[in-house]
């Protein structure tokens, strides 16, 4: 088995007062181990929901259909107890907004060690050594363990949050917007940490909307648009020749490549999309795109969801 995670025909919907919202539709993907995969997409494209679906922590009004296989186990059918055991030990999660994702009434050392202690990964006596080791490996001062999250800068808080989520070196580590709101130095530090974790055996799955970060960090890139996974490709190939028209638009919209905006607005998700969700904005749309369902095509080592291929 060469895939760490296999997602098949995943669909996540939300029941709301206005009706059903489709956050993730028709997503199939395979995650290769020991490399960094980045999910790129704009806000509301469904990339974070995909992450929550993988750790089985969707909001109570959400429901998921399809299959998520992780190391030969079907996560969608596991009991809550089994999922509790997997979360943190085998699938790690690093939430966004570190300042509000760290409990401000507990010391940093407690936040870093409580997960490993409760999973019996370390004993209570090993806590000081463990915390010191983690802090050093994240290039943070050791005395931080007695401090509280509100005493930290944004960059430090982000690193502490990564520490609390990755302490047990989970084989799969999902990071939700790990560089949001950080300055260049801290982005570089976080990047180094993610690379370290990959080298230590984790497979980071980085959710971001930062194209530059993806270009520097990723081995594999997944593009999310309008609840669908429109393209999956190795980084070099992707940036040399993006296949999906949205990928092209996304790359051209970055500052260093001309800052060309994509016309139109993100789609609303109150109906199940039948055709390509990018169709209304697509500069390369064909006549058949209007009313034909859009399959995912495999080309060499990449996949693209577009009728042009």
């Amino acid at each position, binding site marked *: 088995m060469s895939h760490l995670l296999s997602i098949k025909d995943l669909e996540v919907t939300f029941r709301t007062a206005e009706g059903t919202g489709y956050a993730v539709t028709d997503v199939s993907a395979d995650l290769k181990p020991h490399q960094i995969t980045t999910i790129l997409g704009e806000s509301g494209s469904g990339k974070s929901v995909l992450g929550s679906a993988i750790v089985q*922590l969707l909001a109570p009004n959400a429901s998921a259909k399809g299959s998520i296989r992780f190391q030969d186990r079907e996560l969608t059918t596991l009991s809550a107890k089994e999922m509790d055991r997997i*979360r*943190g030990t085998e699938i790690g999660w690093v939430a966004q*907004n570190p300042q509000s*994702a760290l409990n401000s009434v*507990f010391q940093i050392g407690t936040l870093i060690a*409580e997960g490993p202690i409760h999973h019996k990964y370390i004993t209570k006596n090993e806590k000081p050594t463990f915390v010191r080791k983690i802090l050093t490996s994240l290039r943070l001062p050791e005395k931080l363990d007695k401090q509280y999250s509100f005493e930290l800068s944004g960059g430090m808080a982000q690193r502490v949050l990564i520490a609390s989520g990755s302490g047990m070196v989970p084989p799969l580590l999902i990071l939700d917007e790990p560089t949001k709101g950080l300055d260049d130095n801290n982005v570089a530090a976080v990047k180094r940490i993610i690379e370290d974790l990959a080298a230590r055996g984790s497979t980071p799955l980085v959710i971001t909307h930062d194209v530059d970060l993806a270009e520097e960090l990723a081995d594999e890139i997944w593009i999310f648009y309008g609840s669908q996974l429109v393209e999956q490709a190795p980084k070099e190939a992707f940036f040399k020749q993006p296949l999906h028209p949205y990928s092209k638009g996304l790359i051209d919209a970055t500052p260093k490549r001309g800052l060309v905006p994509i016309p139109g607005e993100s789609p609303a998700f109150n109906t199940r999309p039948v055709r390509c969700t990018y169709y209304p904005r697509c500069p390369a749309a064909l006549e058949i795109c209007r009313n034909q369902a859009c399959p995912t095509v495999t080309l060499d080592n990449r996949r693209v969801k577009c009728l042009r291929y």
Partner: protein
Amino acid sequence: MKKISTKASIYFLIAVIAIIIVINIFAPLIAPYDPTATQMTLRNELPSSVHWFGTDGLGRDVLSRVIYGGRGSLFISFFATCLSMLIGIFIGGLAGWYDNWVDHSLQVLMSLFQSLPGLSISIAVVGVLGPSNYSILIALTLTGWSGVARIVRSQVREIKHKQYIESARTYLPSVFYLLFHHVLSALWPTLAVLTAQRMGRMMLSISALSFIGVGLQPPTPDWGVMIQDAKTYVIQQPWALIAPAVMICIAAFCLTRLGERLRDYRDAQMRTMENM
């Protein structure tokens, strides 16, 4: 007139409550007379330099009885508050955390207990179990926990959606630990407010029960019992009634007021934190 700051009044109220508690704990050292010793020749004496608040219908020293009089109600109200807080936190916490049948059934339970008329149920419980400290404790806990549970439930429902809880959920295997450690840690200010208010109310309930004769029993020197005893001779010796009544008022007022002031203080702190 200068407005007294919230913090200053909190300190003041705590000081008054502390003084009352200390007086009651060290009552044997402070009280000038034995609170149960009767002197049939000195019945219903008006206040004098020998008996500051006079004597009651059985010639017992009112001051000494007042000094002893808070022991029972303070003690029982403290334990009844603790017990109903514990039950309320546990049940309210579970109900707030879960969105499924657990919440529904616990809510039914809470509504059931909250719809019971407190005093009547207390009387019934004490009536069945017989008047003793334990039955008062049970009666007050039985009628007190549901209000706590309701407040805890609504708070937990709010806190569980905070990002730090959802983040901790991704690496903690035990929902119990998450709920009663992480969620509860955010609840301490509310719990402090609740404890003070509840204890004030419990004191009043105990006095009421003692007054109608199903609470603490004579000859125990208790403020509620004293009022009951003194009401027969209220025209001849009003001080035997006024003194314990004033003490009940001060104790209950300080406790409930402390709760309110703590709430004001908490709300102000929350506002500054949100504006940060």
